[in-house]
């Protein structure tokens, strides 16, 4: 058997690694085993940021398990990026991906950023794109739901009025006015 890493020398060492409950075995020659040991950790594939992200998303360190899983895979309607593509590279495809994969991303963001609420700057003229407005309405609807569940009806009424106002803006074509 040849070493799986260099494909040149005979494999004499069998290494087993478990990352995120994903077990992988590799047969190595002495030279490659030493090199891997020198790097401290990490078999193939190399431990780059995307692999860490994938691990944080709970798919082990490769995307194959995801591709083989049952059921339709979530895809971003805007750019077509699939979840497994995101997991493979650790990169989102467009702004809308954050909306498409929101549920998956939230725990990931909590782990890499510590927090999940943006504080800080907002675009100065933030009511200028339809997409932005649609997103805001979506956010407000969730807030409304929470307020109702918490029986805070006064607040809910305020939120409902805001949503109506934003929907009206959307119908009138905000971006059309700006452009």
């Amino acid at each position: 058997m040849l070493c799986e890493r260099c494909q040149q020398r005979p494999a004499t060492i069998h290494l087993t690694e478990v990352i995120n409950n994903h077990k992988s075995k590799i047969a190595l020659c002495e030279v490659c085993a030493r090199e891997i040991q020198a790097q401290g950790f990490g078999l193939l594939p190399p431990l780059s940021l995307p692999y860490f992200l994938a691990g944080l998303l709970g798919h082990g360190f490769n995307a194959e398990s995801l591709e083989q899983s049952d059921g339709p895979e979530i895809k971003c309607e805007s750019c077509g990026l699939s979840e497994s593509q995101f997991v493979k590279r650790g990169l989102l495809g467009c702004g809308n991906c954050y909306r498409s994969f929101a549920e998956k991303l939230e725990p990931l963001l909590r782990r890499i950023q510590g927090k999940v609420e943006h504080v800080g700057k907002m675009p100065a003229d933030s009511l200028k794109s339809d997409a932005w407005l649609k997103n805001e309405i979506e956010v407000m609807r969730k807030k409304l739901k929470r307020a109702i569940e918490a029986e805070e009806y006064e607040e809910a009424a305020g939120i409902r009025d805001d949503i109506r106002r934003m929907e009206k803006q959307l119908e009138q074509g905000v971006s059309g006015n700006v452009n």
Partner: protein
Amino acid sequence: MSIKETVSSAHSKWMDGFAPESDVVISSRVRAARNLEQFPFPHLLDEEKAAQVINAVREAVAHKEMVDRVGVLELVVLNELSPLERQIMVDKHLISLDLLLESQKKAVVLREDEVISVMVNEEDHLRIQCLQPGLQLDQAGQLVNLVDDLLGKTLDYAFMEKWGYLTTCPTNIGTGMRASVMLHLPGLVLVGQLGGALNTISKLGLTVRGLYGEGTEAAGDLFQVSNQVTLGQSEEEIISNLTSIVRQLLAQERVARQALYREKRELVEDRVWRAYGILKHARVLSSEEALKLFSSLRLGFDLGIVSDISTGLITELMVMIQPAYLIKMSGEDLPAYRRDVYRAELIRKRMGELNNQGV
């Protein structure tokens, strides 16, 4: 001065500017990542769409208000520059290595003094960057903020109220802001206290890395400290946190230098003058050796041991001795050994030895 001229000089105007705390802090940089709502992120852009992004940015930087308040910003598509010119921009920390790949899809925007630059279609559509000498994170942050506001008047940013500015990699989401300082810490390295200091810093949500080397073995004792987290902290908080931690490091570095100079005066002076002598007279210098010597020379200047050299000149020399610039200057592709010879010659020239003695 055009971008073409900019890259033919190792000197940048910002190197001459007012530089507070410049005995320890070489430069401050603030970078904001922005994406356009209506386009896929750069790694999914085809050439046509990449060109559309570049054109949108071209229009936005030429906007009258931008010119009035920020100045003339020139945009150049990367493949209009020679590979060498591109590498020089990397050496000057104006653009990243990533911007060199698929250069027909990428562009860079630059103000003449090189204080403001914008990378177009790197990992994100826009990386707005401001570079200032010394410790001036506030000023750099304000300038990035202004450029961002003005660009935002023309461009539709991808943004969510909850998660802030949306970036290609989720590690930059929120403010999209990375603030960093380049520090010269020979004192802490010499007294052996750097490891502890860096350890503490990494526990405070900041990242430290050696600038030209790995870990604590950084060539030239140069380190870059930057914020790790971009979500859940405001731009002001990020900058004030980093500034206050840098001020503490700065104080420790000064204490270390003074202690060294007090207790081992001759040794410190010897190190500085040896560096001075070698730089002035050497005939063959690798970039690694030169960086080490510059570190000692800078320390000598800051301690008042040598006076006929400026920190601005050392910063310029640090760009000048990088391989790409040497090749540019010599006009030919030099093998490593010839580069080392040419590097030594350039340094001798700049340090005035050739004036005194001829070659």
